[in-house]
């Protein structure tokens, strides 16, 4: 399979979340992931797009979300970028902490980290880009799953 790149510029709406999720599932299937992995990849992209629409762009109709997929024989790299004020992932509370376990929100990025092999955040001016990598045959190296930039 050759390297391919697909990119979408989407409005800050719930419909965009569904579009990003559906695209992720289709790209993941074409990249050779099995059904379960496709579901996890689609969920990670969904969660990233929800964050971009709701927390990044705050549903501002003048702001957009960019979702891109880069597929190579080795890995699928997905990026979701918003135009919001910026997110510092280090400040996010741990949803597994006893005091947070029964909170209604705060699990989106946690699930992205759980389902992806690598997760990176780029702080832009303005906006945030979350970059998610899933290796076609799992991570081929040890170490941390996450690297903040």
């Amino acid at each position, binding site marked *: 399979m050759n390297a391919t790149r697909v990119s979408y510029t989407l409005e800050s709406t719930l419909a965009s979340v569904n579009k990003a999720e559906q695209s992720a599932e289709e790209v993941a299937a074409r990249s050779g992931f099995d059904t379960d992995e496709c*579901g996890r990849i689609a969920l990670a992209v*969904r969660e990233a797009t*929800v964050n971009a629409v709701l927390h990044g762009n705050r549903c501002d109709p003048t702001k957009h979300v960019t979702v891109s997929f880069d597929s190579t024989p080795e890995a699928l790299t997905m990026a979701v970028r918003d135009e919001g004020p910026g997110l510092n992932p280090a400040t996010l509370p741990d*949803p597994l902490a006893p005091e947070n376990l*029964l909170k*209604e929100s705060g*699990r*989106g990025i946690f699930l992205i980290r759980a389902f992806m092999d690598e997760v990176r955040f780029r702080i832009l001016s303005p906006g945030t880009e979350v970059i998610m990598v899933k290796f076609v045959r799992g991570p081929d190296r040890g170490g941390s799953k996450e690297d903040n930039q």
Partner: protein
Amino acid sequence: MTMKASSRQADGVTIVDLSGRITLGEGSVVLRDTMRDLSAQGHKKILLNLVNVSYIDSSGVGELVSAFTSVRNAGGELKLLNLTQKVHDLLQITKLHKVFDIQDDEAVAIGAFDQ
């Protein structure tokens, strides 16, 4: 697939059969509205049957947590029934499988409510 909810009664327990996706937007709203209506009607023993829930996102997880805490705060009990593997995995990853009483047999689940 849109989310649907219907409720029935068995031995004093309200069983809510859910189907579809519990995700941000319509799915979460349907669950929230259903729980609000049941609370208003005084139902306190609630069994959420998730056998036909194909998909759930973090917003859906949050709605399940909200349902659990609101029923508990009202002095009631909420249990989950017949989780699909996907939903079970999500609750396990988020450690909520230790919070919810998760059942896989309806009759046993009904009997597990406080009398």
